[in-house]
């Protein structure tokens, strides 16, 4: 047992500790709070690098090292928690701490004017700690606990500008919607616990993801012929779908953009929303557990694939018709998370995780770029009122363009190309159906299109910020309450642009570690060593998919140029080119297929109705029964009273009067005069003597 495995817990513990201290600091202690958060994150980053190096050097066995501890005892067993170090953990640790660190630094600039600066860093650090806890957990229970705390910090940070009712509502919505998924997670977890007898993933052969437990789970079937492992897997996937914004639980993610932009970048693009994907990757042995040597994918993985495919297209279509710079990115995130799920479903852990990592970098880049734009435009978020920012914000533009091309999957030079291509290749060879492949390909086309649209709106043409009238806000409110609209966009300070440049570099370079020719990333996750072989491109199916996906990207970029680039957008009020072409479709997409309205009309109404019905039942039925019984009792009491006073008492009184009169009569005998007594005694004596004599004679 090396020290890094034993002390792996420090990686989440340091930020949590920093969060705790920062929470107790006074609001004016801005520098200590930020230093604590950033310092702890930097320390965690260094430790994560150590852990990564350790995994790199460790090729023995399955590459999984665990450290389990007892937590509490119930009955005769101890509930154990633990942490683990394997390639998956190591990769995620480095990604989260690195991206997190950059975003923390960026936040110093972005949140400069905010009065709750100290709280912001406390919440961010708590988030980072909980997220890192999710990553290192070797116990589904520990993972769930950190998962819920991640949900709490997401709530706190979405609602960070709490005075804004929209932010408050969005925060609540995010928590509730993800909790709906978490109920499935909870049930899946207790079911797994009951069947496996443990929630530790790996425990020297006794863990729930290890041989004997899985053999037990696949041997049993439950309703609909599902194997237990698939049934439990699907329940746990509910939790993943909630956190990762999969349809139909995606509705909270666009609203979550009410939070400060660094939060959107860190939590709602790079890390937390990817936690669902990570969860499925973590429990992949359970999801993929087969009975015997069957080759077709398990039902659980099929569910993951289909949900992912639907989400990928769903999110991408909606993103086409949004005007808020952050909401476009949010729906894009929904769509990309769908890709990751497809990747897990059709290709396995490495395929899904590669896209998770590349996406984390370029989507964080895009969000931070968007934040820089919003910051430079004094809080403006509506892309119709931007335009021409290329001139004012050159660094932001360059970085944003890199992120955009990576997200589109521009061939060869950008990381997104390789990771998306791998998903599509895997989907192409899926044994169940080709439909997810075509859905993914269509999504890729749309992605290139909506990103081109956004970039043309924001950076090309002439600036429309000044021309827009502020009396009639178009789409969104101003994000940052510390700002007042000034009419000249400006480049952001270095503390914000340097993280952008670093992320941009990674958005390009990361692709190199996962090409078909040198699939280092995939081999690393499988704990093998990778070999460089350009011959891999000639493997069947690789090149055709690469070429067709490249063509789709070019088509998307071209269509974007055709609609938005050919003629620069002149004024903020001009109608969108697509809206001119297809107003009906555009409206439906703009309103996100009316899913929110649908939920408001069904689930929310049902909920409100249930609440009202429960309260009504309480007040009128159950309490009514009690009231009736009590009135019945009171009624009986009244009748009883009537009988008492009217019947019994009357009789009693008259009886008493009779007795009383008799008493008065008798009282005459007891006047207290001795003569009377003597007289009576004398008479009685005479009577007694006569009686006795009479008896004697007889």
């Amino acid at each position, binding site marked *: 047992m090396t020290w890094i495995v034993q002390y792996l817990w420090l990686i989440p513990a340091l930020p949590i500790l920093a969060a705790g201290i920062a*929470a107790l600091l006074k609001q004016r202690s801005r520098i200590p709070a930020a230093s604590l958060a950033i310092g702890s994150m930097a320390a965690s980053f260094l430790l994560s690098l150590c852990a990564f190096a350790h995994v790199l050097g460790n090729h023995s066995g399955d590459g999984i090292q665990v450290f389990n501890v007892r*937590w*509490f*005892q*119930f*009955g*005769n*067993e101890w509930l154990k928690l633990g942490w683990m170090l394997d390639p998956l953990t190591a990769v995620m640790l480095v990604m989260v701490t690195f991206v997190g660190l950059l975003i923390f630094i960026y936040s110093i600039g972005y949140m400069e004017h905010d009065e709750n600066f100290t709280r912001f860093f406390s919440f961010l650090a708590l988030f980072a700690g909980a997220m890192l806890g999710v990553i290192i957990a070797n116990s589904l*229970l520990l993972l*769930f*606990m*950190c998962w*819920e*705390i991640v949900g*709490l910090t997401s*709530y706190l940070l979405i*609602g960070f500008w*709490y*005075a*804004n*009712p929209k*932010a*408050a*509502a969005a*925060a*609540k919505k995010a*928590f*509730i919607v993800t*909790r*709906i998924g978490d*109920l499935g997670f*909870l*049930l899946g977890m*207790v*079911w797994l*616990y*009951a069947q496996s*007898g443990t929630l530790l993933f790996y425990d020297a052969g006794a863990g729930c993801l290890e041989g004997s437990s899985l053999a037990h789970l696949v041997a049993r079937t439950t309703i609909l012929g599902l194997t237990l492992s698939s049934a439990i897997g699907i329940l746990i996937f509910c939790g993943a779908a909630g956190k990762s914004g999969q349809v139909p639980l995606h509705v909270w993610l666009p609203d979550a953009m009410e939070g400060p932009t660094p939060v959107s970048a860190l939590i709602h693009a790079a890390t937390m929303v990817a936690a669902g994907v990570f969860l499925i990757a973590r429990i992949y042995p359970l999801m993929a557990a087969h009975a015997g040597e069957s080759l077709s994918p398990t039902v659980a993985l099929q569910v993951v694939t289909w949900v992912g495919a639907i989400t990928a297209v769903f999110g991408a279509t909606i993103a086409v018709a949004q005007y808020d710079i952050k909401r476009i990115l949010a729906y894009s995130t929904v769509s990309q998370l769908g890709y990751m799920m497809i990747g897990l479903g059709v290709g396995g852990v490495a395929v899904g995780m590669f896209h998770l990592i590349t996406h984390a970098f370029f989507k964080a880049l895009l969000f931070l770029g968007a934040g820089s734009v919003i910051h430079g435009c004094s809080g403006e978020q509506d892309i119709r009122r931007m335009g021409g920012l290329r001139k004012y914000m050159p660094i932001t533009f360059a970085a944003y363009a890199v992120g955009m091309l990576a997200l589109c999957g521009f061939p060869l030079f950008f990381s997104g190309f390789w990771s998306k291509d791998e998903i599509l290749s895997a989907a192409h060879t899926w044994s169940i159906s080709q439909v997810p492949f075509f859905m993914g390909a269509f999504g890729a086309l749309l992605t290139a299109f909506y990103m081109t649209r956004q970039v043309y709106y924001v950076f090309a043409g002439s600036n429309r910020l000044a021309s827009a009238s502020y009396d009639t806000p178009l789409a969104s409110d101003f994000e940052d309450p510390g700002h007042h609209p000034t009419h000249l966009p400006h480049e952001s300070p270095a503390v914000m642009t340097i993280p952008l440049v670093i992320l941009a570099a990674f958005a390009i370079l990361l692709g190199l570690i996962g090409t078909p020719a040198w699939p280092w990333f995939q081999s690393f996750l499988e704990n093998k060593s990778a070999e460089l072989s350009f011959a891999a491109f000639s493997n069947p199916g690789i090149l055709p998919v690469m070429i067709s996906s490249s063509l789709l990207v070019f088509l998307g970029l071209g269509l974007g140029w055709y609609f938005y680039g050919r003629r620069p957008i002149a004024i903020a009020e001009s109608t969108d080119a697509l809206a001119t072409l297809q107003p009906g479709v555009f409206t439906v997409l703009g309103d996100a297929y009316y899913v929110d309205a649908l939920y408001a009309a069904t689930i929310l109404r049902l*909920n409100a109705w*249930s*609440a*009202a*019905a*429960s*309260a009504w*039942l*309480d007040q009128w039925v*159950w*309490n009514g*029964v*009690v009231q009736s019984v*009590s009135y019945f009792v009171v009624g009986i009491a009244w009748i009883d009273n009537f009988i008492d006073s009217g019947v019994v008492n009357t009789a009693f009184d008259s009886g008493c009067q009779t007795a009383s009169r008799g008493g008065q009569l008798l009282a005459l005998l007891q006047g207290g005069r001795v003569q009377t007594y003597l007289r009576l005694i004398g008479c009685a004596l005479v009577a007694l003597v006569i009686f006795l004599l009479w008896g004697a004679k007889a």
Partner: protein
Amino acid sequence: MTSFPIPVLSILTALPVVGAIALLALGNRNKNLVRWTALAFSLAALVLTLILWSHFDTISGALQFQERNTWVAPLGAEYHVAIDGLGLLMLLLSSIVVPIGIFASWQIQDRVPLYFSLVLLLQACLFGTFTALNFFHWFIFWELSLIPAFFLIRLWGGANRTKAATQFLVYTMVGSIGLLLSFLALFLATRTFDFADLATLAQHGQLMPAVIDKLAWRHVTPDHVAIIVFTGAFLGFAVKVPLFPFHTWLPSAYSEAPTGTTILLTGAMSKMGVYGFLRILLPIFWPQMQVVLTPLLWLAVATIIFSAYAALAQRDLKRIFAYSSINHLGYCLLAIFAVIKFTGGDAALTGEKYAAMNGAFLQMFNHGLTAATLFWFVAILEKRTGGLRSLDDFGGLRKVAPVFTGLMGIALFSSLGLPGLNGFIGEFLIFKGSFPLVPWATSLAVLGLLTTAVFTLGILQRVFYGPLNSQWISFPDLTTRERLALAPAIGLMFALGLYPQLVLAVVNNTAIQMVEHFKF
């Protein structure tokens, strides 16, 4: 079995009575002196309980600190007190809740000595109930506890206090009558009031035959006699917990009572009902409970779901927390009913029963702590607003009272069951244990968790978030004294959430014994 040189449990029960008398003797002249004296007595009881806690033999988990004296032999009345892990946990909870209630009653101005002496009397009744092992004096304490509670509501309550107090008193009395009649039937059949003796008879299957033998009414089958006797006892506890649909007294009693009293009602008195289920119904009547298990489970599920939804429909903070209390104790009952699902020695299921039983214990304690703290926050709020406590009266308080918001937020998330805080572990163990035993009921019960989240976050949203209501621009944040007083309660929430072994180490062996001994 630990023998203690002094009758420590009797001393513990007598201590608040002495305090009550002392308070009355102090009179109304110096109100602060009365308050501090009351607090001192309640803290003395806490210290005494902590001494018990530290001397408790957790390895055995059996009944300890026993005192047993013959009292009225022909009536089967013995003075028999002792505690196991469960009893100890309830004593500790009562000793924690009462000081909280006293703190939250600090603003009471009217008839101060009487108020606080009633509070201490109530505490004595709680101690008596949680230590008694003979029905005779157990029932005396059980009933006696209603008297101080009634007067606390009736004399210091809100606008509808008379009705609420009467309903509370009469409702629980009616339940108790069923309980009394059932135990008289048991006594007639067995000539004993001792819980342990009755449980032993039940365990050997001799209890109900004896009852049926004595009470073989015409036209009633023996099975029905057993169920009728059980139902009587069941009613007494079901009203007290309360179990749906016997709960309607609770919202008005909780909301009309002065908030300091509500803390005692929800923090400690509501546990008397659950305690009764565990100490009395489960050991003595489990064969009957098994017969009607399905309806019982439905009642537990209905309690959980309906009360959560009813809470969602309320505007008054106290009524929300009142319904939330019903909801939380519903989980305890779910676990208790799940435990009797199968009898026998299946090792895997026995493990689940240990989990459910421990979960129920923890949930009782956690709910007591969290609910008391939440009502304490309501009391603090009322003190600042002159009694306003509707969801619609506020908005944006976080702006002016960030510390208040933060600490009450912690308590709210504890009530919601957030991991890392105390509420989670109990609920997790309950679900972990109940799911394999009664999967459908447990699956439905998770709906309660969701609805709880909805109304809890609704409180945060309406009271603390959004634009600041201009009425409260000068709303004062927590004072240093309030922060210091609240800190232990909040700290305990974290401590139990992170290290539940603190409590489980003490109750686990008792839970094992309850499951093992009666082979549920």
